[in-house]
């Protein structure tokens, strides 16, 4: 579960282009189980069948009309097997490597440009995700404030501070859309159920509580273009107000009375904290760093979105398979969302974001653009290890990232996750909500803040 399918596809391709080490690929397939890559003219899959202890690599290519398959039998993951596998890969791959180029397969440049929209179904474009659930979203801030009712004036001011309607409220948006899509799929009407609305509220509250704590940990003075809580009221009360918001979210959640939903959403809290812990340390091994980063991204961002999607699916009486798809959608969407966030940290200006940019570097965090850039500029590895603490490290790293195609590759990875997300909701009953979910996964890549 550490890596998604799409990520591994990108890495697989990178290996083909000689941009990533074999060790990374090896670890990847072990972690993943199986990988399939499909494009116009080829299909490549490699897998590890635990039961038979067979590592297999299959690829087919339309150009070569036929399937090629290499099976490797082994009883242990010994180095000779590794060598064998590497050998067979190098035999198998050169056949189509020349035709394998991201840029020819995917019209990436157009995808990310704002001036022109790309060609696919115009029907998707008509659905504005925000408009579709505007009614539900409107009352959201007030509903949250109702949850945060307190007699203490200061506590009230502080806990309501971030629920001023200026936030992106991305998480409630996703969960409300998913609620509609699920309800239609399981034939229980197209309106959002009360309990699903509660989940949307709880998601935003958990997110805000974690923001408040993050700002203290990262010593951040601004948030959404205004002073952060810790700047205005001090660290101590900010932390306590975060806990307060969390406790009220738990109360709201408990009132849904659904033990499954409660368990799912409380697991998010564990993920958020362990994500924060993962952020503290970095991996010595260069190859592990990327999977560490993706795991952290899942825990810190995607887990909340994925699990709220799953929760509303369960409340919408979806079966296990559908709930899992909803979960996968949320997970892919969440990872894409964070990847875009990480690259905006490099290309956006302070003004647009409402928070200082290159903030991650300043905090010593190596995000996807840096990790990709490090493959072209190995000098970055040392900086990553010392968490950009030395004089000039941040500027140097920014320079390397700008020179490399790190940003571009991050975009691609985000695109892959967004495509995967779209695939996840493809089989939902066709509805405005479903189309909005698909559209959301697309416009996510174009956001500027």
């Amino acid at each position, binding site marked *: 579960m550490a890596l998604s399918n799409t990520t591994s596809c990108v890495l697989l391709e990178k290996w083909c282009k000689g941009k990533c080490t074999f060790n990374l690929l090896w670890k990847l397939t072990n972690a993943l189980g199986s990988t399939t890559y499909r494009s116009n003219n080829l299909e490549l899959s490699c897998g590890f069948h635990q039961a038979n202890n067979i590592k297999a690599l299959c690829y087919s290519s339309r150009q070569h009309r036929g399937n090629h398959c290499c099976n490797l039998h082994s009883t242990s993951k010994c180095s000779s097997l590794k060598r064998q596998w590497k050998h067979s890969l190098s035999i198998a791959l050169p056949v189509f490597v020349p035709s394998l180029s991201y840029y020819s397969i995917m019209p990436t440049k157009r995808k990310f440009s704002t001036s022109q929209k790309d060609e696919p179904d115009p029907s998707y474009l008509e659905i504005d995700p925000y408009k579709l659930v505007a009614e539900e979203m409107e009352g959201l801030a007030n509903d949250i404030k109702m949850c945060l009712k*307190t*007699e*203490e004036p*200061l*506590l009230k001011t*502080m806990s309501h501070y971030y629920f001023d309607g200026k936030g992106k409220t991305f998480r409630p948006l996703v969960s409300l859309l998913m609620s509609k899509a699920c309800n239609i799929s399981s034939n229980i009407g197209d309106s959002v159920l009360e309990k699903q609305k509660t989940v949307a509220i709880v998601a935003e509250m958990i997110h805000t509580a974690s923001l408040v*704590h993050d700002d*203290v*940990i990262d*010593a951040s003075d601004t948030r959404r273009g205004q002073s952060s809580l810790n700047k205005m*009221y*001090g*660290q*101590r*009360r900010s*932390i*306590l*107000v975060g*806990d*307060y918001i*969390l*406790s*009220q979210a*738990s*109360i709201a*959640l*408990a*009132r*849904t*009375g*659904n*033990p499954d939903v*409660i*368990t799912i959403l*409380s*697991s998010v*809290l*564990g993920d*958020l*904290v*362990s994500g*924060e*812990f993962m952020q*503290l*340390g970095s991996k010595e091994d260069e190859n592990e760093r990327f999977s560490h980063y993706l795991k952290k991204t899942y825990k810190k961002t995607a887990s909340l979105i994925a699990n709220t999607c799953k929760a509303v699916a369960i409340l919408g009486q979806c079966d296990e398979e559908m709930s899992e798809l909803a979960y996968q959608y949320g997970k892919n969407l969440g990872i894409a969302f964070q990847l875009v966030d990480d690259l905006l940290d490099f290309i956006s200006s302070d003004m647009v974001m409402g928070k200082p940019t290159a903030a991650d570097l300043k905090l010593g965090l190596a995000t996807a653009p840096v990790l990709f850039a490090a493959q072209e500029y190995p000098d970055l590895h040392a900086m990553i290890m010392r968490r950009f603490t030395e004089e000039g490290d941040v500027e140097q790293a920014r320079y390397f990232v700008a020179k490399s195609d790190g940003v571009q590759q991050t975009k691609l990875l985000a695109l892959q996750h967004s495509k995967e997300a779209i695939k996840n909701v493809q089989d939902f009953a066709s509805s405005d909500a479903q189309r909005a979910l698909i559209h959301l996964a697309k416009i996510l890549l174009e956001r500027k803040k």
Partner: protein
Amino acid sequence: MYSLIYQLRMVSFESATKIVSFTRVYSKSLQTFPKCSSIKFQLNKLSSSSDKFQICKYTFFRDYRVTTNEDKKSVSKAVSDAEKIVGYPTSFLSLRCLLSDELSNIALHMRKLVGTRHPLLKTARGMVFDGKNNLQLRGLLVMLISKAAGPNPQAPYTEQEMISGVYPSQRSLAEITEVIHTASLIHKGVVNLADILPEDGPLSDMEFGNKMAVLSGDYLLSSACIGLAKLGNPLVIEQVASSIGDMMAAEFTPFTDAGGKSTVPESCNSFSDWLKQTHLSFGSLLARSCQSAMTLAGHSEDLGKMAFAFGENTTYAHQLSKDIAAITNQDENPNLRPTSAPVVLYREMASLEEINKMYTFWQEEKINYKKILSALVDSGAVDKCKQLCLQYRNKAISSLDCYTESDAKVALINMVTAVSDVR
């Protein structure tokens, strides 16, 4: 890590088997008790809640305590007795959390804080050592009241699942209660970086200490939430979560300033404000945990309400006794704050002039405890406080009337009596 937990479990099983033999010894030392309890029941029949009766009841329990416990050791004696009843030493309740990878990570980093005055150090020390104020009484009380309530045919578990008379879910709840309490202590120890003094330590270290405090507190809170969810009872989650909310709200009342120091607002004039503050900061957690223990076993709502009252009144009695100790025990004088119960009571009795005079003592370079104490004692505020303490103790004890006599109930009474000592 796992082997250690395993060992601890083994210890708990061993002590569970020892209980049988232990209770025999225990009841021998308490031979007088059956008599006493019958007296108490008769008294109960005679009168409901008149003051005279309260005093009468008080002497009864007080004598009882004196016969079973020796002076200073009374609390630890009551605790160790009670621990044997519920099966294992509860001081290790939150050990499972302490042994996690996340917190051991923090412990490694903690070295950086040595030499600074970051409150996290003190809290951490309290978690490892069994300090005077860190006996993890809450968890123990939750388990004892669970046992006192006994098995319930309507419970979602069978009686066979009980270990030493406590359902596994109630045991988890006791653990969660302790974890929440610890988490709140840690988070309350976050310092405002704008207010730190040079002698506290370098700014960077204090900032680092804050980071560690936030993360470890968050870790504990999230494991508490996951544990609560596992209990599978939404009502319990609601109760416990609202007690977390109460504890946080307590830090935003006019009684506490931004740095967490006690202050007395102009508006506060009555003892009921003190009660409210004590309820929010300590009472709520214990009261709702006790109530939740009843909910988990499927006991009636009335039993839950009584358990709530027990937890709440025990907290009041305990807090009053601590506030009194700050006056009667010289070593603990620094614990006397403008928000201590005797001072609040003094405000009710004294004239504005006298009150202002008292506050000037606090503002002096070296706080003049002698003058404060004499003013408090002379006004009768301390005596009033003692009286109130005993009243709350008795209220707590009488809320146990709904349970049949058992060694768990005896232990509960012992505990309450020990923690509300007013001499």
